[in-house]
């Protein structure tokens, strides 16, 4: 039984968050290279870029990249919040606990990430 747990972390253990952050970074790196590669070798125009992104494989790759970005962002933002939104960082101003403020911050982050992910998926698959 781990000595410290936190129900709001993504993978629930530090090890799974650590691995997920690296796996998602690899996905994002590969996607970034793919996009840079397109701009490096293709005859770039709106039509060629739209055609490149409209392929089914590329749509799945873009979706995977968006999901990876969401997971990566949540782990990072959760870490930032649990580092800096702490009672001792605010003195007595929070009535003894930063829990409420951290919860609002975490809710805001999750909401933004979910909205951005859903919005991105509708764009990628032309659902809008």
């Amino acid at each position, binding site marked *: 039984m*781990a000595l410290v747990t936190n129900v709001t972390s993504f993978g629930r253990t530090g*090890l799974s968050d650590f691995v997920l952050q690296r796996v998602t970074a690899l996905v994002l790196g590969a996607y970034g290279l793919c996009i840079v590669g397109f701009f490096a070798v293709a005859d770039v125009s709106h039509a060629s870029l739209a055609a490149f992104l409209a392929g089914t494989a590329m749509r799945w790759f873009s979706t995977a990249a968006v999901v990876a970005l969401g997971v990566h962002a949540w782990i990072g933002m959760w870490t930032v919040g649990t580092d800096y939104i702490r009672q001792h960082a605010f003195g007595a101003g929070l009535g003894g606990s930063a829990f409420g403020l951290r919860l609002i911050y975490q809710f805001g982050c999750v909401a933004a990430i979910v909205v951005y992910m859903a919005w991105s998926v509708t764009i990628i698959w032309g659902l809008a």
Partner: protein
Amino acid sequence: MKVSIYRFDPDADEKAHLQDVEVELPEGRDLMVLDVLELAKSRDPSIAYRRSCREGVCGSDGMNINGKNGLACITPVSEAARGGKLVLRPLPGLPVIRDLVVDMSAFFRQYERVKPYLINDAPPPAEERLQSPEDRAKLDGLYECILCACCSTSCPSFWWNPDKFVGPAGLLQAYRFLADSRDTATEERLADLEDPFSVFRCRGIMNCVNACPRGLNPTRAIGKIRSMLLTEAT
């Protein structure tokens, strides 16, 4: 030489302040910071600090010397005060009891958490638990820690979460027992460290390595713990 010393008396002061003390250094000799502090104390006996062995073994006089954590007794003034001024503050991140004396309870609570002792439930042999020279060599760079807290109090992750992040000193000791061939509690020790804070709050900025007066490398030990956790889980 002008020495600025952090002063705080909980009975008299509302806020801490820096007090300038003029100290006369002997010609042609390089003193240690602790010697300068003793000279300052001879001028103002109310200055409070911890000290004991004066040779970098007991770990009592850890403090922030011109912005860098170190042991006052083995830090030469010529090295610390290059600009000709010495500023002495308590170790950062721990509550100040008085002047340069900090409350190290949070630091030792984390040390206690990693069970810094050999666990082996097998019946003890008649004489001693033997270890090969190769296995013994694995403990080099780990057992030498004197628990001065210079590393943990230079670590921002420990400043933010001193109740949850074990900190570099505690993790160095955690690995010291994980790496010990005579210890049989590896699985339990690793299970106690896999949460999001205890080990994984380390972001590898290596302030601990920079601060350690014994030249130890807690960041490397933390990396080894992470590798063991990963190996255990896969």
